[in-house]
């Protein structure tokens, strides 16, 4: 027979894990016995009879792992046996009590018959429902599928790893208890979120179910509407449940279970009868509960309840089954008109609805399955797997986050009542993942550690059950739900602390294992990050530390680093870092990303972490941005430490990284070394504005908090001491260094001639200045001295390279003095060109008013250019007059002119000055030497180092 349509019936059976190993009177545990007695066993009886009658029905059953575990539990079976015996006994008593009232007596006898039938069934199978489920599965008529391990609402689980664990532990449990791997899954509460399909695919799951709107709102619009499944991007099939079929059963207004002939759930003899009579059958502490014996039918609204009539109810169930089938047939016929294949109608329900809430539910299902399988000319029963085998071509679409809860999304599990749990659950996830990853190599060899982590995983998963949030939302047994969430998380934390401290209490652990004997062999690897790249990275750090025990690890903070170079600082940090790396120091530099792409790279053996700020630099106030960079540095350091990097000290460069430096020093209790490259006070010859004041204070704070300060000259040491009162013994002078390039090659000579020609410098002596065009650089002095020099040497040319705020003013000054033809302002010049200019120059002049160090003078010296420098700051320490260069009185243009003229007059002296300058550089300013000096300083913090690790 070719079908016009398919009906896929799906029952989802789930109860939270409510077993209590210590007490047998837990009210919550009665949920299990009631469901077994009223729903699970009656449903199994229906399926058994269908099998016995060779009815070719099809159904899909999802049994959640906690429920499977409880059904498989000898303790639960034993307690159920007692519960059932009591119930049979009560039914017997009820038959005697109602003997005077024929209508009620008939109902009592119905119960007695019913319970005896169930008791006989249970005795036959030794109270074990698992074999019955297996028989059903093996029959081929029912497809058994799984659910997340503890029915967690997956969209609210924070990490991929914890979702994976929920899926995989569920699948493993299913396979362990039922002997097969499930093809499909019932997502708890139909909770879907984008990306979940990727993890389902990875877990080998073929299909899942969603609410109707999940597929209706898919992208692109599903062409077959809700009458076919939809593949997700990862090719897992989503089966949307049919709305009409749902409504007919679920709706409190028009749903079948509300029919007046059906049994009334809320009138139970547990509440209605005399205490003395009923006491032995309710809760021992005197709490009335449902006994399952109910005598009334729904009857109607606002009318006295009439006594239940089993025959009438049974007839009604048959009528409703017929109506349900006819409705599906009508739907199928209608849909077949526009669909290119037979429509599929997926009808999904909670299994506990049938029998427990809707007493006649199992009868309804019995009628429905028989009628459809035997009588329907339109509808065939099917399962998702069978449908997918028959119709492998399915459209694909992306599904939105959704659920089948109130209003279709997450509000049942995330609202004012239960929102507080996620902070704790997410933290627990992260901690477990980190600890599993950290201890991964030891799990085999250390069984107690493994067991501890496995129990921690169980506690977390139990806390994740969506049932607790659901109950808090419903405000029914809130205390129980809060207690369960709290207790599992508290036990989790306790265990984690013990594991970390290496003090696992074996007895306490064993007690928790006994109390929660589900998932006996949780595979901890599910919590490992995919691919475990991360494992390698952190291990690399740790291993690197172990390998060379003497090798220091330095966390360096610098706001600039090549290619981002604003002043000389970035260059100096780069040179120091790479030369330290050559000395086997593990250097991590935290710096700002030049564009928006944050990244980590290895530069000449230095690990450079380029960081983004929340707001990019050009979009905000400089100071705000600098502070944001400090936040980013703090976070990056925290991340590195969490990944296993253990710095021995922090090395900060200038005030821009002061907040992060101070914070990290405190947080990780590390020694702090700070290099002061320049001071705000010196740059501006005093502090004049509020901004300068702030920066000045930052410098002071940082200086005070640093264990050691490095400055580049004795002059700077004096300044730091004078301005901030830092004692000299905490200040070390380590100059900046330069590379010493070899003498000019023939090629370079050629290019030097090219440059002369290009700039029209003629053949006369070139006097060179390089630096920012700011007042403190003293270019005006050079312009003042120029006329006298030109008087003696009319063919001389002044070449001024660099840009800055004073450039225009100085250009005008040159013009006014009639120097235009002998002075060239070049603006910015790259390093290669600058070096050529130095090489061809007769003299390099540095007329600074303030110069903390004067790296450019060193560079000129290294290139063989005679240097004339102001007798100030760091320059004074580099240039010794008449030995390796010439100096003049700071701020004195005449003095400068004297020296220039002398040098140009005495070309024979040039060779001597240059030779000595080069020797000095090799002896004092060579980076390898400076790196070693810095390393010595690091090591001198030894006592602090020893305590910090």
């Amino acid at each position: 027979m070719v079908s016009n349509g398919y009906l896929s019936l799906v029952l989802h059976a789930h109860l939270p894990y409510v077993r209590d190993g210590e007490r047998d009177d837990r009210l919550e545990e009665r949920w299990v016995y009631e469901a077994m007695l009223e729903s699970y066993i009656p449903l199994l009886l229906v399926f058994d009879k269908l099998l016995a009658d060779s009815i070719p029905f099809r159904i899909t059953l999802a049994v959640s792992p906690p429920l499977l575990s409880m059904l498989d539990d000898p303790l639960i079976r034993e307690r159920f046996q007692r519960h059932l015996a009591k119930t049979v006994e009560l039914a017997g008593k009820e038959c005697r009590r109602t003997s005077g009232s024929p209508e009620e007596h008939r109902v009592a006898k119905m119960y007695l018959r019913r319970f005896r039938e169930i008791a006989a069934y249970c005795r036959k199978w030794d109270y074990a429902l698992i074999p019955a489920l297996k028989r059903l599965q093996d029959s081929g008529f029912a497809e058994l599928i799984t659910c997340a391990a503890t029915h967690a609402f997956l969209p609210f689980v924070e990490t991929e790893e914890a979702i994976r664990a929920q899926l995989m532990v569920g699948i493993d449990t299913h396979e362990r208890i039922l002997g097969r791997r499930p093809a499909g899954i019932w997502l708890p509460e139909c909770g879907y979120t984008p990306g979940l399909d990727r993890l389902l695919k990875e877990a080998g799951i073929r299909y899942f179910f969603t609410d109707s709107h999940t597929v209706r709102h898919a992208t692109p619009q599903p062409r077959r509407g809700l009458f076919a499944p939809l593949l997700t991007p990862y090719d897992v099939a989503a089966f949307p449940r049919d709305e009409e079929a749902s409504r007919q059963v679920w709706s409190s207004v028009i749903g079948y279970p509300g029919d007046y002939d059906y049994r009334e759930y809320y009138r139970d003899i547990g509440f209605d009868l005399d205490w003395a009579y009923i006491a032995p059958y309710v809760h021992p502490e005197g709490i009335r509960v449902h006994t399952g014996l109910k005598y009334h039918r729904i009857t109607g609204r606002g009318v006295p309840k009439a006594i239940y009539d089993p025959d009438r109810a049974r007839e009604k169930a048959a009528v409703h089954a017929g109506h349900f089938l006819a409705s599906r047939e009508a739907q199928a016929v209608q849909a077949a008109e526009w669909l290119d294949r037979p429509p599929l109608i997926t009808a999904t329900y909670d299994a506990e609805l049938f029998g427990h809430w809707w007493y006649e539910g199992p009868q309804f299902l019995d009628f429905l399955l028989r009628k459809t399988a035997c009588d329907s000319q339109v509808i065939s029963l099917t399962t998702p797997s069978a449908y997918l085998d028959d119709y492998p071509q399915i459209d694909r679409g992306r599904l939105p986050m959704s659920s089948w809860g109130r209003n279709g999304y997450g509000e049942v599990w995330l609202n004012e009542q239960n929102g507080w749990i996620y902070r704790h659950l997410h933290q627990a996830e992260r901690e477990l993942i980190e600890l599993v990853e950290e201890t991964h190599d030891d799990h085999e060899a250390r069984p107690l550690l493994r067991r501890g982590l496995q129990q921690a995983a169980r506690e977390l998963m139990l806390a994740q059950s969506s049932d607790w949030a659901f109950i808090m939302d419903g405000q029914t047994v809130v205390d129980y739900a809060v207690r369960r969430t709290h207790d599992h998380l508290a036990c989790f934390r306790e265990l984690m602390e013990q594991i970390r401290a290496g003090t696992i209490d074996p007895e306490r652990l064993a007690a928790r294992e006994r109390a929660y004997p589900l998932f006996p062999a949780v595979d901890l690897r599910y919590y490992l990050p995919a691919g475990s790249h991360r494992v390698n990275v952190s291990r690399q750090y740790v291993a690197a530390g172990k390998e060379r025990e003497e090798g220091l690890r330095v966390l360096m903070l610098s706001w600039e680093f090549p290619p981002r170079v604003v002043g000389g600082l970035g260059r100096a940090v780069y040179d120091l870092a790479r030369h330290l790396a050559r000395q086997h120091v593990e250097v991590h530099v935290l710096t700002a990303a030049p564009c928006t792409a944050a990244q980590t790279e290895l530069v000449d053996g230095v690990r450079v972490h380029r960081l983004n700020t929340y707001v990019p630099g050009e979009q905000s106030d400089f100071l705000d941005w600098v502070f944001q960079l400090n936040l980013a540095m703090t976070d990056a350091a925290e991340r590195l430490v969490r990944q296993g990097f253990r710095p021995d000290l922090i090395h900060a460069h200038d005030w821009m990284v002061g907040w992060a430096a101070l914070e990290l020093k405190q947080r990780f209790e590390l020694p702090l070394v700070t290099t002061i490259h320049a001071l705000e006070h010196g740059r501006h010859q005093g502090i004049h504005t509020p901004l300068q004041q702030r920066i000045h204070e930052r410098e002071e704070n940082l200086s005070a908090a640093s264990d050691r300060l490095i400055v580049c000259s004795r002059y700077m040491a004096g300044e730091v001491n004078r301005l901030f009162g830092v004692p000299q013994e905490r200040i070390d002078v380590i100059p900046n260094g330069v590379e010493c390039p070899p003498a000019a090659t023939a090629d370079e000579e050629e290019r030097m001639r090219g440059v002369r020609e290009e700039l029209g410098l003629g053949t006369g002596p070139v006097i060179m200045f390089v630096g920012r065009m700011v007042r403190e650089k003293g270019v005006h002095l050079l312009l003042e001295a120029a006329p006298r020099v030109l008087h003696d040497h009319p063919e001389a040319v002044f070449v001024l390279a660099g840009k800055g705020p004073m450039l225009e003013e100085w250009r005008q000054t040159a013009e006014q003095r009639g120097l235009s033809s002998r002075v060239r302002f070049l603006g910015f010049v790259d390093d290669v060109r600058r070096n050529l200019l130095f090489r061809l120059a007769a003299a390099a002049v540095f007329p600074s008013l303030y110069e903390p160090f004067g790296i450019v003078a060193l560079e000129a010296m290294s290139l063989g250019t005679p240097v004339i420098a102001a007798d100030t700051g760091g320059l004074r320490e580099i240039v010794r007059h008449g030995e390796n260069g010439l100096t003049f009185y700071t701020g004195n243009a005449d003095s400068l002119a004297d020296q220039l003229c002398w040098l140009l007059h005495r070309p024979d002296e040039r060779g001597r000055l240059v030779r000595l300058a080069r020797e000095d550089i090799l002896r004092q300013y060579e980076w390898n030497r400076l790196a070693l000096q810095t390393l010595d300083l690091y090591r001198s913090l030894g006592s602090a180092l020893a305590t910090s690790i």
Partner: protein
Amino acid sequence: MLERILQLRSQSMSIAQIAKECGLTVGQVKYRLQKGRSRSEAEPAASRNAAPSQNRPDDAWRLPPFYGRDVVKLMVQGPTVLFVYWEITWPRMRMVASYLQADYRQIDKGLRLYDVTDRLFDGTNAHGHRDVTVSDGAHSWFVHDVQPGRTYIADFGLFHRERFYPILRSEPAATPRNHPAAWGEPLVETAADTRVPAWFENFSSYSLYPKTSK
């Protein structure tokens, strides 16, 4: 005394410094701070979304109110409602306070919610943003009336002198669309490799792959 400790704390002083300043031991300062925290937890203003620990005797409640980890977590309750919870640790507050040169507790705190749908957010290129001031002592917030089918990022930060200073940024989260897709959306290709996400995912991962913004 607690007031004084909190004041010093917000002036970027360390516990040890505060202890010295107040003539207490480090332990005493920590104890007072902790007590102060649990007290502010129980204040009515903070009881929104707070744990129901109030209902239980103190000694029975064994979950810490805070974990010492800076976090801003953005969760999607539904198409138009987001939930944000956060923890800003003392050290971070201390840093921010020292930058702003102000008492952290006196500054308005809040969330800036950016619509970053289909963008690689760099702090400036959101489609738009919206500010929410949160009450003092709150540690979580429901943000209503957001748009379905959009991707959001939240900053927790301070509103100070008419500017917003972000302190911590969340991961992006996407609200579901609550109506059918527009006509003409492209067909979806199969994503074969399950190791790396091909599409935006609402959950985080400890694995080392970048979040896609698609």
